[in-house]
């Protein structure tokens, strides 16, 4: 039994090391916000302060960068979510070679380094449309790969969709637009929300692509990176701390909603199985039999 205990101990040590490696750096970064030292550090600890939040609050360029990031993110949501939706609707109905080819083309931006997406976008739009770097080009460049994330989310949701619902509505005389608006879109609504959420996060955090297409506009990540290189104070830590807190709140909300969704799907499935077992003849929609996938 000692071998078993030794193995358990080893696993525990590994888990502690792994999560320590994951969280200690973030903890140190957060703690440095409250140190009075002008350079962000936790050693030596010179005393507790909340002053760096005030310094951050009075930093006008930070607010401007935040504004730029939010405008870009809104633009990316407006472009990438509908694009991803259209792509998923198309792929869902295609089969064979055409689908594989188009699918590979669509996910290729996810396997391309971000700097290359930025560079190719910069060159293309300047040469053909005389559009140089700035907010518009940043939206275009980011959307080119964020649309692929949105497409994957919609495609996953569409796998659970029961196309007979559409067929039935069409047979009963609904127009295609009515079917889309009343059946397909409501079913996809959770995916629309998660796609918008992912698009926002991806855009807000993007650095590599933005770096090449931003022109003279500065987004928040670009601003943070430039601050670290020149003029670093714990105000940057205060900003990081706020962003981390918001991110955690966002991630927790997203997770809770996703789990509720999964639980609901599971409950529906269980109910359908019960009804089937009790033999009252209600046909089980194919969608309910497929287990929920994130």
């Amino acid at each position, binding site marked *: 039994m000692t071998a078993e205990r030794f193995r358990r101990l080893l696993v525990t040590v590994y888990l502690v090391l792994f999560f320590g490696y994951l969280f200690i750096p973030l903890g140190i970064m957060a703690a440095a916000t409250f140190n009075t030292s002008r350079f962000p550090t936790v050693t030596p600890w010179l005393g507790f302060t909340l002053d760096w939040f005030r310094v951050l609050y009075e930093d006008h360029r930070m607010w401007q960068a935040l504004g730029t990031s939010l405008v870009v993110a809104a633009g990316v949501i407006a472009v990438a979510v509908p694009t991803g939706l259209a792509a998923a609707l198309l792929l869902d109905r295609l089969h064979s070679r055409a689908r594989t080819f188009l699918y590979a083309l669509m996910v290729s931006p996810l396997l391309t380094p971000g700097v290359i997406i930025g560079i190719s976008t910069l060159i293309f739009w300047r040469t053909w449309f005389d559009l140089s770097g700035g907010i518009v080009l940043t939206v275009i460049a980011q959307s080119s790969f964020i649309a692929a994330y949105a497409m994957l989310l919609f495609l996953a949701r569409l796998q659970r969709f029961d196309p007979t619902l559409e067929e039935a509505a069409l047979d009963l005389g609904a127009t295609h637009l009515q079917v889309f608006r009343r059946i397909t879109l409501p079913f996809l609504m959770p995916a629309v929300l998660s796609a918008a959420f992912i698009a926002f996060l991806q855009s807000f955090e993007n650095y590599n692509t933005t770096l090449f297409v931003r022109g003279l506009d500065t987004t928040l990540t670009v601003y943070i990176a430039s601050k670290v290189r020149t003029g670093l104070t714990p105000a940057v830590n205060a900003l990081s701390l706020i962003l981390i807190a918001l991110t955690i709140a*966002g991630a927790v909300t997203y997770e809770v909603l996703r789990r509720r969704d999964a639980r609901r799907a599971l409950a529906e499935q269980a109910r359908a199985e019960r009804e089937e077992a009790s033999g009252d003849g209600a046909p089980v929609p194919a969608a309910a039999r497929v287990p929920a996938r994130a």
Partner: protein
Amino acid sequence: MTGVLHRYGPVLTGFIVLVVALWVVMLVVLPQILMIDFSLRPMLPPSRVGGPEDVYTLANYMTLWTNTIHLGIFVKTIWASALVTAVTLAVCYPMAFYLAQVAPKRRLPTFMMLLVIPFWINEILRTFAWYIILAYSGPLNNLLVGIGILDAPVRFQGDGSVILGMVYAYILFMVFPVYNAIESLDRHQIEAARDLGAGWLRIHWRIVLPHARPGIAVGCIMTFMLAAGSYAVPLLLGGPQSRWFTEVIYNWFFEGGNWNQGAAYAFILLVLCIGFILLMMRLFRVGLTDIAK
């Protein structure tokens, strides 16, 4: 195509096709083609673009061969990214296996949550955290001097820090694909192997690893691509002696002002990443459909 038309009707189909075409053609394919076209032309002042000197040439690609500093940085970027990938896999594989096969089911959501949270936090911030730790008067130096491992603080800025920072930044791109692959492995297979007397090393080598192949391939591809294409980590954690290939590309664009040259270097980076994808597919014997999931 008739299936699409039948399902969505002419108006909606037209709209869908238009949007998808705009995306794929204008945002994905044409920019790449133009970047390649750009890389094959010499840099000329605007007045002479399209003139007799504007011919296709490989000169921009030859620069990488003749400039030994750039070539050195390029080679360094390759091996360092490969090292980042290997270390990340070694760090993540046990975690992925633990989560997929060992961890009690009721604790799984908590573990997932703990993994997902740093994953949501921006790469710049994750790197900035290490910047603070590795600073000259930072906590790591203080710790190492304090317990007597070092006599005096060390300047960590350099290739080692960059690699460490990248492993940290990309760890989760490896954990999740490998976890997903191992999760689908039937636990009975492991138990059967154990009952038949296989040791744990043999179980992993003959059963778990082969099953996890597609996940490992995806994780390695993502990690390598992110590492080779990273700009933030070398910017924050590298010293003057440890430049990354992306920094060279950036300088061609915004300091050297030679976009054609920069485009050639960018395309070389893209070819490197595609080459790595093909290598992984061959090495792990997985197809494109396994990867593009």
